[in-house]
Structures are given as structure tokens and as C-alpha cells.
């Protein structure tokens, strides 16, 4: 599992790649939680994640909760249809900004921050 961090303007973009399972999730979880305070706006890119387990789904939810507690904005991009479906069925998708590509995600996060979207729970479905 690899984590690559870069910055697009004021938005942090974190790209994950490899298998996201219960073995790698705690480490990823830890590193993300370290990175998270650096950015008020974060886009997490899942496009190169190969294998997804319940542990990694929980991780997504935890990221959301930490971000919400800190008043930060998080977008997730590149979710596979299966992961999207699981998050949709459990209601967690309602909480995220979901976009197809990193560029879309960055744009949506900016839009949110600039207050163009008044509603806290707007979701653009992937």
C-alpha cells in the first residue's frame, strides 16, 4: 500500500494505491489522520486501490468523522461501483463529496469551501 501526497492550490490530494485490507488499513488510517490536520480541504483518490475490505470501508467512515469533527471538507474520488454501492446502502455516501476524478473533486471541494453550496450534505453521485 502506497500513499502519495501532493497539493493542488490549497487542496491536499492523497492518492492511495495497492490493497486496502485489514492489514494495511490501520497504517493508512494512522498516516491519514496525521495528514488530515494539514489541510482544511482534502481529496482522497481511491482509483488505484485494488482490493477493498470492510476494514477499509470503516476507515473511510472514520476519516469522515474526524473531518467533520474538525470542520474540514473531504472528497473521495475514484470509488469502484462496488465500494460506492456499499457506502450508498449503509448511508455513508450521504456524508461525502463524491466525484469521479481528482480534478472534479478539487473543484467541488473548493466550491464547498467558497460557500457556493449552502447545503452541507450535497452529493454528486459518481
Amino acid at each position: 500500500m502506497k500513499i502519495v501526497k501532493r497539493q493542488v492550490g490549497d487542496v491536499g490530494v492523497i492518492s492511495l494505491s495497492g490493497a486496502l485490507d485489514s492489514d494495511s488499513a490501520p497504517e493508512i488510517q494512522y498516516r491519514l489522520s496525521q495528514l488530515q490536520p494539514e489541510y482544511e480541504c482534502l481529496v482522497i483518490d481511491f482509483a488505484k486501490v485494488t482490493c477493498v475490505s470492510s476494514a477499509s470501508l470503516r476507515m473511510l467512515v472514520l476519516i469522515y468523522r474526524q473531518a467533520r469533527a474538525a470542520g474540514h471538507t473531504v472528497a473521495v474520488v475514484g470509488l469502484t461501483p462496488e465500494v460506492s454501492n456499499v457506502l450508498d446502502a449503509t448511508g455513508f455516501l450521504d456524508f461525502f463529496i463524491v466525484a469521479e476524478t481528482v480534478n472534479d473533486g478539487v473543484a467541488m471541494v473548493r466550491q464547498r469551501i467558497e460557500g457556493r453550496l449552502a447545503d452541507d450534505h450535497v452529493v454528486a453521485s459518481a
Partner: protein
Amino acid sequence: MTMSSRVRDRIDSFPTHQIEGYGVRAGRVAPMGATLVPNGVNFAVFSSSATAVSVVLYEIGETEPFVELLIPEDFRIGRVWAMTVFGLNYEQIEYGFRVDGPNDDRHRDRFDRTVVLSDPYAKVLAGRETWGQTPDPHRGYQHRARLTFDDFDWEGDRPLRLPADELVVYETHVRGFTRHPSAGVRNPGTYAGLIEKIPYLRKLGVTCVELLPIFEFDEFGNSRIDEVTGDRLLNYWGYNTVGFFAPKAGYAATGRFGMQGDEFKHLVRSLHSAGIEVLLDVVFNHTAEGNELGPTISFRGLDNSTYYMLTPEGYYYNFSGTGNTVNSNHPVVRDFVVSCLRYWASEYHIDGFRFDLAAIMDRDEHGVPLDNPPLIQALSSDPVLRDCKLVAEAWDAGGLYEVGSFPNYHRWAEWNGRYRDTLRRFLKGDDAVLGDLATRLSGSPDLYWSRGASASVNFLTCHDGFTLMDLFSYDDKHNEANGEHDNDGANDNNSWNCGVEGATDDPEINALRLRQVKNAVLLLLTSRGIPMLLSGDEVGRTQHGNNNVYCQDNELAWFDWSLTETNADLLEFVSNVISLRAEHPVLRALNHPNGIDPSDCGHPEVSWHGVRPWEPDWSPGSRLLGVMWCGHHLPDGAPDYVYVVANAHWEAHDVILPVPDDGWVWCLAADTSGGAVPAGDEGPLTDPFGYTVGPRSVVALVARPVTG
């Protein structure tokens, strides 16, 4: 120092002993089952006579455990074996218990140390996470307990606490509701699928869904091959609970990820935000372990004689008709049931419970009915359950019939079987039913005089029996597909096929059937008490005469959504009649009406009429009854009038109408020979004094002041 590290540094969050390389310490006796604690997992197991208890730990999905930890005798307090185990990767394990003890000659105990037992308190069970996927018989441990956080974000959701008079209950099956290909949902047959149909429920106007069992069960329990088709007949209904604290994983699109709890909570939260309550059909009268030939899953191997009613010879009493009977008035079992329902009410925000074969819960350990059953008493006054609706199916398979006499502590409602039988007999045209009909329409004061009409859950159909369309399409049940040579299911259905058994091209018969369905719905929704509709009846769903589809996981039992178009007229009728009820509080009031005029509106609260006003014909051959409801029930104190004429005669009758009040006229809300209009759209009758009620038809009128 952060809060979390302070918690982690409790001085009891470190092991005191080592067993098989794992750090452990004496555990806490509560809560029962497995609980996440700082750095570890606490296990607490009750057995009144076990001599040894081990915690058996598996990697997820593995056939063989990676370790078994024998709980030291020193860790037992009373008869609870409790141990905290440290250093477990709780997301990666499944756990069970191995329990040893004496096996006496009379089979009161049935300890079997060759079996790994499921935790009866497990919040998540794996093993049946994909519906209908054939289980591996070589895997010794079948129903595999897992740990969970129970940390769903409810976003401020609370149980709705709807007043009883606002309830319109819709009984449905999670899988059957959206499994049919016509449902058009992303995740057919699941909690998530049901969420997609909430707009339909809202439009229909129901305010409460009652779900057939959603506690984890084994659809392969007693499954068999259909001799004719070669298909496997699964246990579709699910009245054979395996895990009382665990939602059915196979009903979740996310069951493979162990996220069924979150998905079901998402369903509850979504229904609540649509103003719809959730009642669960719960089955505490028996378990999936069957009789002495059945599988040992949990209770039997933990403490057989505590959890089950046993004959003096050690066999299982069978008041449930399914092999065993839960010994629910034993103090330990009572606590189990109460804590289970507290869990569902608090953790899942469930609004109420319908108890399958509830009369069993009135029996003592020998099966003798009790005047003050401790379990019923405990549920009735439980602080956590105080706002939950409690509904009894007040009979059992051992012949105890308590409709009207279920010990209720002013808390319980009942499925009113008398209502069902009387309404069915009236509609098919039986003689001498009118007196009883009047009693049923009034909320069954003969049964519930001390409790009010909210004790009466009125229904004509439920999952168990004919659908409403089949009630008027079949004289006899046709259960051949169940593979029991038509010996299963009720024989006494009070049904009538309207002239031909089963489907027909005869337009007159089909029109009559449709009218009878509408008659049933209109009478149900204008009766005092809590109305309950069976899912699919609003679109004329058929089961082709099968009145017991417990094993039909197929199109026979599933909701066919194309019927919402084929029978759009009926669907609209039902929705309009629900709106009629919603708009007229005089129909929903929860007192039993009598012949006096409590709100001083010039007429009694209820009055009875025939073809001439104020002259009801109660003679045995009479089949027409008019009922006028009247009272100052509207929010602004204005009088609320509804007149319902029910004609079960095969001929039309010209009915002279009672006069509501000076300056008020009758307006047509519904005529089952025609249609119904949405509440508020009723237009005045052409003839203000009379109306021709068609053959086998029901008419509902509302009164309005003359304008202009």
C-alpha cells in the same frame, strides 16, 4: 494527554494471566456476550451447570480455530464465566464457545463438547451472509459470531412515537418487497432496496412498516428439494431465529462486508425521516434448534433446561408447532428477551414489536398459562421500552387462544383475529353477521372494553394466509408447491372464489373480485382500531391460492411491481381511502363509541342504519348495514361526519340517507362499484337524500356544509 489515552491507561486494561500465548484477566459478568473493552474483548457466558467453557477463536471464514482459550475456573462468578482477552485483532476474528458439562439420563442437559456454540448475544453473525448461498456442511461452526462497534451516525434520528390513532400498518417482507425483477432497485431484496421504495410507501400513505423476521435466521433450516420442480425450498419467512441480537445478513447488500447493522440502521433512519415507523415481527416462542433431532446452535448446548420447556422425560414441549418452546418465564430467559428488545429499541431505534405466537410467553415452564406472566409484566413496564408499541399475536399452536384476554397491563395491542374472521364472513355473504360486524367496526368493545380501540389491530389478511385477492379467488388453499401434499396452511379461511376457482377470463367475476378487495380495504380503513394492510394487497397481488408461502422464495411470494401499473386503479383507491382515514379523526378515535352524543353534535357518536335511516335490520338474513360516525373531532371543533354503507347482498339497494345536520350535505368519498377521490375532493351527491348502493359494494360519504 488525550482522553483516549487516559481511557487506555486504566489499570485493568492489562493482562494478569497468559493462556495459550494470549494475555487475559478475569472478565466482567456484564454485559453478556462479547464486548469491546480497552485493549481487549470481554467474554461473559452464562450456564447453570457447565463444568468448562472455552472461547474459540477463528480467523474470519476459516474452518479451524486458531486458538481455544479455556476460561479458568477462578474467572467464574456465580454461574457466569467471564474473561477479558487482550491483543485480538477484533475485525479479523470470529468467535464461539465450547461448553462441557454433565449429560444426565433424562436429557435435561445436552452439553456437547464436540460442537462450537454460537453466542446468543452476538450482534453480527456470519455464515449466511449471502442469501441462498449453500452453506458448506463440512464447516463445523456455521453461525459465526463477530464483533461490532455499533457506532452508527443517527444524525439526530429518534423513534417517532406516533400516536396510535395515526398508525396505518403495512406488513411486508424485506426480501420479498424488492426481490422481483420488476422492482427496479439497485440492490434487490435488501434493506437498501427497501429504502428505494420509501417514496412509494409515502404516496400510499402508510405510517408504519411491520417487517417479517429480520433477526438472523437460517434459510437452509429444514430446507428441502421440491419433488416436482427440483428447486430447493428455502425458509423464506424466517420464523426460525438463530441470532436474536443480529440483523439478517442475507437481507443486506453489504452482508459480505459484515455491514448489515449499518445498512439496517440506514433503513430505519430513512423510514423515520419519511414519517414511517418500524415494527419488527419478533419470534421468542421457539428457536432454530428444533426438537431433540435438531441442530445444536447455541442455547441447547449452553443450558438446555433453562432455555427450553422440557417434558419430565426431557423431550421438548412443542407449543410452537416447530419442535421446541422457549421457556420465556424463566428469570434468565426473561432477562435475555428484555435485554434483546432493549437493544433493538435503543441501538436500532425500533418503534415497536409484534410478538409471534405471543400466548406462549404466558406459559410457565410446564406450559401452564399464568395469570401474571413475569415476562409480559417485565416488558410492559420496562423503562427503555416504555414508548415502544407492543403487539401480541395472542394465540399459539398449543391451543391457547387469548384474543381479548391476553395479559396486557394496559400496554399491549393484539392482532384481532375476530375482526379478520367476522369481516371475511360478512364480505362473502354469510347470514347473521351484522351484529358482530357492528362490534368489529366499533373497535371490538366486547374484547377491549377496558383498553380502548388502540388494543385492536384490525386486519383481513397478513403474511400467514391468503392474499386479499386470493381471498376472493379461491374457496380452498392450493399449497401443492410447498411439497407437503397440501396438508400445510389453514383450512378454515372464510374465503369465496366468486364463482370460479382461481384465475378466470370472466370479466364479471374479475370485476366482482376487484370490488370485494375494495370493500375489504374501505371497511378496514373506516373501522376503529389500528388498521394493518398486507403488502401487495393494494395492487391485488396473488399467490395463486397458496395460503402458506413460508418456503416460496420466488415469484409466488415476491411483490410484483408491474401490478402497480396493471392495477393502478386499485392502488389509487387504497391510497385515497387511507387519506380519507387520515382526514377524519372521527374514524380514528380510540374510544369505543356508544349511543350517546359526547360532543353534543346532535347525533350519537355512532349510529346504525338500514335502507331507511335509523332502522338497522339486524335480522339473520340482512346483509346491509349503514354506520354513521359523528363527533366534534376536527381540530377547529367542527363536526366530523362519515357515513359508511356496507352491502354484502348480491343485489343493489336504494338507501335513504340519515340527515347529518341542518345545512350539511353528503359528499361521495368512495364507492367500491366506482372509485374513490382523494380526501378533500369529495363532491356533493346528485340526490342529497338517497344513494343506490350497488351489489356487494361499500360506499363512504362525508358531510360538508352547503356553500353559496
